[in-house]
């Protein structure tokens, strides 16, 4: 489903290379975990997948279902089914959450040639998803993410993911900022979306999340490259030995 081939990318503004020849393949139905030290380029990779303009791809390609997405803008990628749950979801004053959900859902439907959702239908879907994530509907009347606690923001991201039903879910440290109960709720939400035709890239620092969302593969990102891949046991090794141990062995 996702093939990243020899990807090189730099910060558009100052030309600093962050991603330096990264290769990664994630198949439909697969859950791939990405781990790596702070500053290794994990969030950058997620932004590049989503199409953020701050980064420039200088070499390599990203194929989504066999098609290069490099020329697509973020909205086109989203309509194709790529979803990024942000490490730091943004607060957008003045845009009511409910209105945003409606516009987002219907924009994607429109780009795919589907009919817009009826208000009642939309409301029912939102209610159901919010209930599963134990979110208060009152929150959705507020401006998007404004004044939400760290944990509430992360839940709101997963709420959007459930509603938009993407094909490729990229979760950037969705576990950070969540208490233990919330982690479980969010992980259940993510697991409920696991399906043979959906792939997930789960970026995390902690084994704990991977106890709930059990990955099919684990990849270690270091200085803009995937330097080591393995199955779920790799995460345990990392937890036990730290990056120094594992990377020392890789080098």
């Amino acid at each position, binding site marked *: 489903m996702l093939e990243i081939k020899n990807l090189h990318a730099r910060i558009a503004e100052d030309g600093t290379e962050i991603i330096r020849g990264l290769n990664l393949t994630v198949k439909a139905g697969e859950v791939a975990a990405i781990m790596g030290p702070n500053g290794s380029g994990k969030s950058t990779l997620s932004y590049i997948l989503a199409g953020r303009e701050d980064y420039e791809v200088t070499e390599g390609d990203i194929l989504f279902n066999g098609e290069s997405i490099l020329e697509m803008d973020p*909205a086109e990628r989203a309509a194709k089914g790529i979803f990024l749950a942000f490490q730091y979801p943004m607060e957008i004053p*003045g845009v009511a959450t409910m209105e945003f959900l409606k516009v*987002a859902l219907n924009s994607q439907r429109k780009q795919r040639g589907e009919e817009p959702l009826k208000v009642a239908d939309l409301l029912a879907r939102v209610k159901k998803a919010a209930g599963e994530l134990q979110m208060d509907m009152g929150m959705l009347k507020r401006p998007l993410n404004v004044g939400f606690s760290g944990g509430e923001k992360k839940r709101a991201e997963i709420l959007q993911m459930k509603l938009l039903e993407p094909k490729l879910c990229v979760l950037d440290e969705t576990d950070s900022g969540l208490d233990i109960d919330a982690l479980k709720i969010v992980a259940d939400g993510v697991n409920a979306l696991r399906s043979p035709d959906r792939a997930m890239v789960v970026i995390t620092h902690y084994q704990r999340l991977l106890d709930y969302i059990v990955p099919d593969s684990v990849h270690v990102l270091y200085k803009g490259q995937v330097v080591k891949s393995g199955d779920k046991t790799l995460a345990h090794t990392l937890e036990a030995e730290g990056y120094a141990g594992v990377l020392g062995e890789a080098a």
Partner: protein
Amino acid sequence: MAVNMNAAPKLTPAETALVEAFAEKVADLPGDPGMMLLRDRAVETIRAGLPTRRVESWHYTDLRRLLTDVPAAHAAVTAKATAPLVAGSTVVLATAGAAGKLPKVDGARIERLATQLLAGELTERLAPKGADDAVGAINAAFVADGVSVTIEPEVVLAAPVELQNIHVGGQVHGRLSVSVGQGAKAIFVERQTGAGAALVSSVAELEVADEAEATWIIVQEQPETTTHLAQLNATIGKNAKLTVFLMNTGGRLVRQELRIVAAGENCEFTLRGVNLLTGSTHTDVTMVLDHAAFGATSTEIIRNVVLGKAQGVFQGQIRVAREAQKTDAKMACNTLLLSDEGEFSIKPELEIFADDVACGHGATVAEIDRNHLFYLMARGIPEKEARGLLVKAFLAEVIEELGDEALVEPLEARLDAWFGANG
């Protein structure tokens, strides 16, 4: 050969048109000798020259240069009332400056101004407020009618009163005179619109008596062929509240002056404004707020969106008198500049003579936040719509501060209508 050394500067075509229109109309203008003298003086100030950028209060709006032409004065033509902003409002229509049929409202008196003008009862109030008061002078010279609304004390009006000033081109001069009695409560909508090339001057006087509460909403949606020169003069009494909401979405050359006097102790003034500017238009909002009494609170937030080659101006002057201790005044002006060719000038000014006050102002000029744009697009919202959503959000924030859904919703609908036509 005699050379006239004192020759006045050559009149601009606009000045000429005004002076000629006056000569043509003066015989029909209502007024006692005192009023007619005031009109003569007002015309003399026009003949002496409209204000230029050298006049401080007109620095960013050189009226003499910008007012390039004034259409011929039409006889009054009847126009139809437009649907009120808030459904169920009492609509008072003035067409081309002349009051139409006057509705009856319990607890209020609604009258036409022509009779009072004729009797000279308004002369004092019509006098221009200073040498630089070009809007007041033009209005005083020509105004022939208008509407007065008096809300009796302690009356709470159930529905807003919408004062519609609708023109069908030509020179149009209107006047509104409104008083809200002690302890009364009322919402007014000043609706400025029309069709065709026009010069509109519209001056409103508003008196909010002690303990009263008034909301004054100006919706200015003039066509791009209209020059709109307007003024709101308001006085706020003791413990009274006045909220002014201003929405400028039209006009080719617009000057909206707000002259507010916080006259009574512990009164409250709130100004919220949105200016949506596009094309080659020029829009100037100039506020002079006098804090004249102890303990009054005021907040002003103006939000601007600038597209095309539009030029915008906000001048906000707050003057705090010596006796106005414990004044709390805050002013902010935020602009979204969406085009390289557009411009917005801001001039805040605080003149404080009291020592125990909290006064502040802030201004920002920004573009659309790229991070916000990315977030919305990453959810599948195409760029154009995402931008629209963010621009609307920027404006909706101040509209929503009105708190009253009955006002917020229709105002946001006007925004949507504007974006539909200009987005």
